[in-house]
């Protein structure tokens, strides 16, 4: 079983996001990137499947800011092979283009199963995993929280609202959008990542060329303004507690 995990970086949301002077893009000078957290779950699920059934886990990513670190971290966690698609994506890339590049790369790397994160914070034009599935003409299930293998099929749980799930049997190869791995994604010790930098090699895989437009253009980006503004409760913890108690009383909640 060869499991391919395409991974993408997104702006680190812990940092303040600034919009640049054009009003249409994030200010990239101060942007920090990190691995999309749902991709981390996809990798974890891939590693768990490998531990259960054998096979190999192959990670592929786009050429942007922290790509090398992302790939070596994947090795440190247990991935077998790492690929980078050349073509500088530091200026950002839309999901249709990313999915097309992953599709081209996937065909030349080969795979039995593709796991991606369910979504990412900057998916303006849709989720990469499901776009990828369609570009490859493969069956797909998104929002997957449980995954097991039965012969040439996978049994997956797709989450709906209210805790209800649907169980599907899917003939492989297929693409799944992973919402959450069975376990919290493992941690890669820094020493192991450092070792991977020294001993592992990043391979290159072509992503082909992608069309320039995806049929919509960004007019502007802005911080959402909420209709109602929260009233600040300030002071020492004890002051704050006192004020909360007062307002709970005044609202008949205490």
């Amino acid at each position, binding site marked *: 079983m060869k499991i391919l995990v395409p991974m993408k970086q997104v702006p680190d*949301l812990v940092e*303040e*996001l600034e919009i640049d002077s054009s009003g249409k893009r994030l200010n990239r000078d101060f942007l920090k990137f990190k691995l999309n957290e749902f991709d981390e779950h996809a990798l974890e699920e891939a590693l768990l499947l490998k531990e259960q059934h054998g096979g190999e886990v192959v990670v592929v990513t786009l050429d942007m800011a922290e790509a090398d670190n992302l790939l070596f971290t994947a090795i440190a966690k247990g991935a077998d092979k790492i690929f980078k698609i050349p073509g500088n994506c530091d200026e950002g890339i839309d*999901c*249709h283009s990313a999915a097309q590049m992953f599709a081209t790369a996937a065909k030349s790397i080969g795979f039995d199963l593709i796991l991606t994160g369910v*979504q990412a*914070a*900057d*998916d*303006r*034009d*849709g989720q990469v995993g*499901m*776009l990828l*599935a*369609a570009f490859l003409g493969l*069956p*797909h299930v*998104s*929002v997957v929280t449980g995954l097991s293998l039965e012969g040439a099929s996978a049994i997956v749980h*797709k*989450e*709906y*609202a*209210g*805790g*209800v*799930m*649907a*169980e*599907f*049997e*899917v*003939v492989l190869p297929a693409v799944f959008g992973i919402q*959450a791995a069975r376990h*919290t994604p493992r941690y890669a010790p820094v020493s192991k990542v450092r070792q991977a930098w020294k001993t592992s090699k990043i391979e290159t895989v072509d992503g082909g060329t992608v069309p320039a437009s995806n*049929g*919509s*253009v*960004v*007019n502007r*980006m*802005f*911080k*959402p303004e*909420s209709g*109602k503004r*929260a*009233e*600040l*409760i300030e002071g020492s*913890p*004890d002051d*704050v*507690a006192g004020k909360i*108690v007062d*307002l709970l009383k005044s*609202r008949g*909640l*205490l």
Partner: protein
Amino acid sequence: MPNDVFVVAEHLKNKLSDVTFEMLGKGREIADACGGKLVAVVLGSGTKDLAAQLGVADSVISVDDPALEHFSPEAYRIVLSSVVKDRQPKLTLIANTSMGMDLAAPLSAELNIPLVAYCKGLSADSGNVSVTSQLYAGKVDVESSITSAQAIISVLAGSFAGDAGRSERTPSIEEVRPSTSLNDLRVKFRRLVEPEPSDVDITKEEKLVSIGRGIQSQDNIALAEELAAALGGAISASRPIIDNGWLPKSRQVGKSGMSVKPKLYLTLGISGAPEHVEGMKDAATIIAVNTDPRAPIFDIADYAVVGDLFDIVPALTERIKGAKG
């Protein structure tokens, strides 16, 4: 037709989801502005009574087939793709839900129709469509213009008023057969898995203390439990807490958890991601505690405490106990 707006109805267990009516209401407005028809598309088996509820639409396309009895990413995509290809609507609105995620993006790639996702705002001015997407976990909105003749828009639940999408009118229903065989597909529905019954039903609680990743460890949950007990409420949580196995699924609030409307919703270390907010925005009073003054939770909270929950919670628990004497 070139100016029509299609809305893909979503349903589970023979019930249309709220977002269906929200999309219909918005779709009505857009179709009128573009001089086109509003068409609802309902896929399923034995869905006559569902189709009858879609009277806000000028017409309903109903694809009724035993193979469509349960949602299936593959069967539904195949059928919807042929309907859209055949009818060429200007806009196709699909919910940005679990089911919708298996339709919108694949359809876009397959039919080469642009997609704008996470739509929370939609307008049309002399045929020009503008979409506002909620991105970066609710921290930044992005407004896009559609530059091609057709587009697919995936719509976030709770973005538009549902009332405008409901009507007593009986819609005209057009029955359409699937254009290709739905046998021997690669994705087979097996069963629905219901959540395990739980001790507490958080949708019935009047006061919820809701914890997020800011609580840091399972051991710290006791702090929040003590506060909830003092308040006479229960404890709920954001998704990561459940994924970590710290609390049962029945305590999860949000898109893939429960929707709650308590009198009081007090959040501790929850950032306010759109998927969480979807499940709690209708709470009567929302108090949020978060160390990050820019956390999106403050955009929907009534009261904001910018501070460390580990300072606030013990003080608050003590005060409440004192107040109750």
